[in-house]
């Protein structure tokens, strides 16, 4: 049926042709070959038949109506999201209030000073000559920190609190942060629908 001297078209190329992935010269050469080669034409027809049958596969019946289950989920989710919005608004309000009262104390007593000390630790680990360097480093840091806080003070005039107040605010901010993280995980858990077996 087929001439062994003729180079036949590979199945992959036939697939590409049926998938309309061959264009231009490749397509016209293949069509020319198909017009001359019965073997390739038969194979093309077989593949074409299979492709057609796959594409025309009839749909299976679902068996049960999923709409009531999905709507129940949506209703429960809507209820949850109302509470979530209120909770998030409350958290945001609390955080802003805490920061408004405590930002100056937090910056001056905790953040900058601590950062100066932490950054100096690897330098201290180097040896004898570094004591002077460490002192200079921390002093410079504190100096800039004071400059920064003074500048901020000029721009934003907000209430100031004492040392005890700072501790309280710091503790409250930590709690709010934990609360936020907890909510994040809860939201993620709620976001994933628990599928109900119909």
């Amino acid at each position, binding site marked *: 049926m087929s001439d062994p001297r003729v180079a036949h078209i590979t*199945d*992959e190329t036939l*697939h*590409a042709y049926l*998938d*309309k*992935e061959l264009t231009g010269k490749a397509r016209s050469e293949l069509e020319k070959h198909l017009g001359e080669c019965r073997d390739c034409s038969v*194979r093309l027809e*077989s*593949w074409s*038949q*299979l*492709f057609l*049958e*796959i*594409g025309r*596969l*009839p*749909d*299976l*019946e*679902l068996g*049960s*109506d*999923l*709409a*009531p*289950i*999905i*709507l129940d*989920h*949506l*209703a429960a*989710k*809507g209820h949850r999201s109302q509470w979530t919005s209120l909770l998030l608004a409350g958290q945001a309000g609390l955080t802003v209030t805490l920061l408004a009262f405590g930002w100056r104390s937090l910056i001056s007593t905790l953040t900058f000073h601590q950062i100066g000390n932490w950054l100096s630790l690897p330098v201290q680990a180097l040896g004898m000559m570094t004591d002077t360097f460490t002192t200079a480093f921390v002093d410079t840091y504190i100096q800039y920190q004071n400059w920064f806080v003074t500048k901020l003070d000029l721009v934003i005039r907000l209430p100031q609190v004492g040392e005890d107040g700072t501790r309280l605010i710091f503790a409250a901010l930590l709690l709010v942060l934990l609360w936020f993280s907890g909510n994040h995980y809860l939201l993620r858990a709620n976001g994933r*629908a628990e*599928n*109900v*077996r*119909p």
Partner: protein
Amino acid sequence: MQEHSDRCLVEIALQGDHRAYGELVRRYQGSVFNVCYRIMGERQAAEDMTQETFLRAHDRLKTFDPDRSFAPWIRRVGANLCLNAIQREKLTMLPLDDELEGSGHGINGRPELARVHAERAEAIREAILELPAAYRVVIELRHFFDMSYKEIAEAVGLPLSDVKSHLFRARKLLAERLTIDV
């Protein structure tokens, strides 16, 4: 609510009317289920993914372009969810040698035409479901979503050459299992 168009139902659903969305679910749950079934290869998993599809689609309903048809959009959401589910379970993506060998489901006998067609369709469905997940996915996207090789590569995150070889091998397996002489 039957007389409403999909576009109209989407607009009503966007205003918070769950009944309108319920109608959309009733209209398309069957076709979404079939997409999920062909990709997941298992009825219960397909039903779960169908539910998940409509819940996710509801969240993203604002992103739906009302000038386009709802049916392909929701089917695509379903296909994407199934793809993600399969890609999370990398092992099932890999074609196993046992799976590749196949058993060959021939179709014998030629009684009434309708029954022959039904049996043939069932054989094709079974053959598709027996394919490794990676092959089922490319078959679904090519034959049911009419996507080009390039679009499939982008959708599944595979090189173009892998898409071609997956498609080729999947079809070869189908042909073997359906005892088509090619």
